[in-house]
């Protein structure tokens, strides 16, 4: 390890305190360039040894809690799952996720997503709840496969940061929220598709998406929100044709 300590890499980190600073500035820090060190390890090195005032979020450091999304050399990334050596010799520019207001330095405000998420009814809806004493709702592995990838969303916000529609249309529900709605729509145990329909089919829902596909490209968990949106567009189109041909009152709402 002793030989490694001589190697360093420069992090150019965005600093910003709204209300105090007029605009974000970049501050350079030299951190050790070591094998296995993630961008996050570089940032915690800064925090611990160089500058206690740098603010960023992190927790699990294993790519599952979704806290540490940042823009690394222009790309949205989980900083715990992106490694210094992949950017050698540097410098590496670390900025907050785009398309969100900045709270401080690398910390962004995700209240917009937290407000939108409940609107898509992201929970299992049943007409009648069976008592747990009756045992599990049966679901075959094939039925589980239908929605499983959409259940993998860690709410890390990389897809919102990458989405060109969200940057122009802040009312857009966005990739993760729609993918989570589809996660329940495609769950064989769920009966809430009608309840989710109005919000998903609204102008702020699926129809806002122009299918750029950036969301799926940046997802660290292999969720395909763009696919979810396209799939629901087909469902919604089919539903409206059906409704045109066979008018009916909806069962819920």
């Amino acid at each position, binding site marked *: *390890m002793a030989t490694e300590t001589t190697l360093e890499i420069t992090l150019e980190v965005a600093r910003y*305190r*709204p*209300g*105090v600073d007029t605009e974000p500035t970049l501050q350079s820090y030299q951190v050790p360039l070591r094998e*296995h060190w993630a961008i996050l390890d570089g940032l915690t090195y800064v*925090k*611990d*040894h160089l*500058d*206690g*005032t740098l*603010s960023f*979020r992190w*927790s*699990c*450091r*294993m*790519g*599952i*809690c*979704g*806290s540490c999304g940042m823009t690394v050399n222009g790309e949205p990334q989980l900083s715990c*799952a992106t490694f210094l050596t992949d950017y050698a010799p540097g410098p590496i520019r670390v900025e907050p996720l785009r398309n969100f207001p900045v*709270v*401080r330095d690398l*910390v962004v*405000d995700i209240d917009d997503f*937290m407000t939108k998420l*409940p609107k898509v*009814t*992201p*929970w*299992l809806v*049943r007409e009648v*709840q*069976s008592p*747990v*004493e009756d*045992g*599990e*709702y*049966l*679901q*075959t*592995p094939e*039925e*589980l496969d239908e*929605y*499983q990838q959409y*259940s*993998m*969303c*860690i*709410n890390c916000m990389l897809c919102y940061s990458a989405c060109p529609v969200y940057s122009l249309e802040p009312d857009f529900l966005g990739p993760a929220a729609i993918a*989570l709605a589809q996660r*329940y729509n495609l*769950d064989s*145990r*769920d009966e809430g598709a009608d309840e989710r329909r109005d919000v998903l089919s609204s102008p702020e829902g699926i129809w806002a998406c122009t299918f750029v596909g950036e969301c799926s490209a940046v997802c660290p968990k292999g969720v395909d929100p763009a696919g979810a949106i396209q799939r629901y567009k087909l469902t919604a189109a089919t539903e409206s044709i059906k409704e045109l041909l066979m008018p009916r009152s909806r069962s819920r709402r």
Partner: protein
Amino acid sequence: MANYHDVVVVGGGGAGLRAAIAVAETNPALRVAVISKVYPMRSHTVSAEGGAAAVAGADDTRDEHAYDTVSGGDWLCDQDAVEAFVAEAPRELLRLEHWGCPWSRQPDGKIAVRAFGGMKKKRTWFAADRTGFHLLHTLFQTALSYSDIVRYDEWYVTKILVDDGRAYGVVAIELATGRIETITANAVILCTGGCGRVFPFTTNANIKTGDGMALAYRAGAPLKDMEFVQYHPTGLPFTGILITEAARAEGGWLLNKDGYRYLQDYDLGTPTPDPVLRNMELGPRDRLSQAFVHEMEKGRTIDTPYGPVVNLDLRHLGAKLIDAKLPFVRELCSKYQNIDPVRELVPVRPVVHYMMGGVHTDLRGATPLDGLYAAGEVACVSINGANRLGSNSLPECLVFGNRAGRAAAVFAGRYHREVPSSIVAQGRDEERRLAADLGRRVEGHQRIADIRTEMQATMENGAGIYRDGDSLTKAAHELAELRLRFQHAGIDDHSTNFNTELIAWLELGFMLDVAECIIDSAALREESRGAHQRTDFPARDDEQFLAHSLVRRQPDGSSRVGYLPVTLTRWPPGERVYGR
């Protein structure tokens, strides 16, 4: 009163969300709030991998689950608590299923179960190897359907307000703005999780700083069995990232540097090609981590820049099984170790994983302090005794989160929505203290990270897998010095918005309390039991120590350890037998 809630839940992980839902269901008229230092879906429950235990099949019984848990805990579990736990765990996991948890299934659509360490039957429900993630997101999304549950996301609780032996709320800081608020309540439920970050090498997330334990301790509630710290046998070197026990349950082998399945040398059974329950790699975590130390002492581990390791061999399982049952293990190995477990050996070493001890509660989650409840890893009921079995912690969060939520709802429902004026005054005092902390400037001060790093080294050296009187005494002295240095620690960041340095400083104060409780409890337990192994007292001593330690804070800030008998119902203390 603007910031009054009938019940305040501190922590938004598995136990906290389950507790909040239980309050809402028990009495919809109650106002319940969840205060968490991270957004609920960031909570550490998210990192749990292997599964959740509950009797599922016709071939299994609650008594067998109870016996495995009690023997796994080296008879330090309270057996009435274990009986309640095994009885309610299946119902809780089914409830999660009804809420949408994507449990892995059998071909006929029923819940699938897998083997797990120390369990004599297959009873561990799983969602591939991301069980905690799915459990947490299911709970979080379900909690969103309860629009009455108020959330304080990214608020950090600094103090529990107490008057005349009763908890009446908390003081908390909103991270985004630095706003400090007194949040009063008729009941407080602590669900803040564990304290792995007190040690240098841990599977635990950065947020696991023992906040709830220290909050309760400072409020006058005792901490129980704090000397019992679980080392999980398989963490990735350097990062400490957990490689789930499910890897061994699915058939993985632990090999020393000679490629030898060394567990056969430690009274854990004989090797077989296929996994056998309660045998070899499916032994309990304490015994496996201890076996590693002996292998190391015999020179049969492999030296790496990040310490000695052994190898976890999954190659014979094949890509198909690994991708179906252990996809996250493959992802983690690839990303953080640059290896593919389908073709390569996985280097692993024991890593601090779980705190068996915690805030002393009864079976309802109630602490001795009226109005204060605790559930999940922060609490010690105790179902885990001296060593928790893998896959018991997730159902513990649900069973006792539910119990604490119900009990707190009943308690809070009995009282008017007003709190004593002394509480409001206490809140103001704390608000002033925090404002002063934020502004504190210490010339030539100590760095927070330096004190934290030294505390972690002290804990590992003093209270690791094996301890003795000398190592613990030395650790106690070092902690006393670190405490003095902490008084001179300062912060560089004096801004109010998202000041993570202030939070790190407050967390370090909490961790020093927790560290001291661990060391003091360990020093007085002159026996070896489960995860507490004293080289100077190598035998279990039921005469003296079939008892829970209870550590209480004294008025001068020092700790005092007492004891409480273990509740035995049907399983008298016996020998822990694995592999024979």
